[in-house]
C-alpha cells in the first residue's frame, strides 16, 4: 500500500508520520546547531570549513523536514524550529550535550550519520510516497558526512592519545546511540507503515555498519542496552535547553531567519 496524499490517509498513519518527521527534523536541528560550536575553533582551518559545511547541511535537512511537518500541521517551519519548549522536542539525547573534545564530536556525529541514513532509507521505503525524493536528497549528502567520520576514526585510532579519547567517547555515546531507534509517537511507526523496516531491524543495521567501522580499527563497541531515556518522548537534558536558547537569539530579535 502507498500513500500519496495525506487527505485520504488514516489518522493513525498521519499522526505516526508527523511524529517521526518531527523527530528527524529535531535531530538535524540539534545536531546542526551543536556542530556550529566548532565554527571558528575547529582543530585546523581546513577542518573548520569542512565541519561547518557539514553543520550547514544538517541545518538544511532540518528545514526540509520542518517544512514537511509544517504542511501537516498547517503551521510554519520557523515556529517548529524556534517557538517550542524543550520538552516538545523529539530529538535523540545523543545529540544534545556540548562536545567534550574532537573525538567525542567524531564519534557522536558519525553514529548520528549512520543512524540517520538507516532511518531515512526506511522512511523512503515506507508508505508515504512524497517523502522518498526528500529522503534521497538527504541520503546523498549524508554519504559525504559518513566518509568524513570514517576517515577521522581511522586517523584518531592511529594515534595513541587519539585512540584513548576515541575509546572514551565511544563508551559514553553508545547507549544513547542505540536509543536513537525508539518511536517518537504513540504507535509503532513501522507497523503504521511510516517505515519500511521495523525499528529493531534499523537498530541492528546501525550496529552492523557503525560497529564494523570501529572494528576495522580494532575497537569493539560496548555491550550495553539502549539508554532508558531517549529524548523521543521529550525527556531531555539541560544541555538542550541551553542550546535551543542560543539558537533562538537571532530569531527573537525579529530577524527573518530560516528554520
Amino acid at each position, binding site marked *: 500500500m502507498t500513500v500519496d496524499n495525506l487527505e485520504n490517509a488514516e489518522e493513525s498513519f498521519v499522526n505516526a508520520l508527523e511524529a517521526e518527521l518531527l523527530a528527524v527534523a529535531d535531530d538535524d536541528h540539534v545536531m546542526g546547531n551543536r556542530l556550529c560550536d566548532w565554527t571558528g575553533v575547529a582543530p585546523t*582551518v581546513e577542518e573548520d570549513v*569542512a565541519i561547518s559545511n557539514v553543520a550547514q547541511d544538517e541545518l538544511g535537512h532540518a528545514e526540509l523536514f520542518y517544512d514537511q511537518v509544517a504542511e501537516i500541521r498547517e503551521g510554519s517551519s520557523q515556529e517548529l524550529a524556534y517557538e517550542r519548549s524543550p520538552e516538545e522536542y523529539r530529538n535523540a539525547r545523543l545529540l544534545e550535550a556540548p562536545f567534550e573534545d574532537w573525538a567525542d564530536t567524531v564519534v557522536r556525529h558519525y553514529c548520528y550519520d549512520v543512524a540517520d541514513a538507516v532511518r531515512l532509507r526506511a522512511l523512503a521505503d515506507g508508505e508515504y510516497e512524497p517523502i522518498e525524493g526528500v529522503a534521497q536528497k538527504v541520503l546523498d549528502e549524508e554519504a559525504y558526512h559518513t566518509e568524513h567520520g570514517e*576517515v577521522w576514526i581511522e586517523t584518531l585510532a592511529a594515534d595513541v592519545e587519539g585512540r584513548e579519547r576515541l575509546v572514551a567517547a565511544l563508551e559514553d555515546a553508545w547507549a544513547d546511540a542505540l536509543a536513537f531507534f525508539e518511536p517518537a509517537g504513540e504507535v509503532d511507526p513501522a507497523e503504521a507503515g511510516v517505515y519500511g523496516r521495523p525499528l529493531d531491524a534499523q537498530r541492528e543495521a546501525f550496529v552492523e555498519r557503525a560497529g564494523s567501522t570501529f572494528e576495522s580499527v580494532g575497537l569493539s563497541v560496548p555491550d550495553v542496552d539502549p539508554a532508558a531515556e531517549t529524548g523521543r518522548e521529550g525527556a531531555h537534558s539541560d544541555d538542550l535547553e541551553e542550546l535551543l536558547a542560543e539558537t533562538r537569539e537571532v530569531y527573537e530579535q525579529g530577524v527573518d531567519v530560516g528554520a
Partner: protein
Amino acid sequence: MSEATGGENVYLVFRRQDAAAPLTEAGSVDAKNAELAKIYARENYARRKRTEELVVVPKTAMESLGEVPYGGTLEKEYRENRGYENVEGFTA
C-alpha cells in the same frame, strides 16, 4: 590553506576545471594524512566550483631544481609568447 610552508602535513591541491583544462595549482591544505587531505581539498577548493578532477600531492614529494640555470637571465624576452610589445623599436 595559506601558502604552503613546507611542513610535513602540507598537501598541494591541483584542480582541473573541465576535461580540456590543464591541471592547475589551486592552493594547499594542512592535513594529518592523504585521506583527510582529499576531504579538505574537496570541501575547500571544489565544493562551490565546477571541478572535473582534484588531486592532492604531499609537499614533501615535490622535487625542486633549486635555482634554474639560465632561467630568465639572457634578456631575450622578445622570444616569449607575449610578443614584442615591450621591446623598443617594435609596435605591439
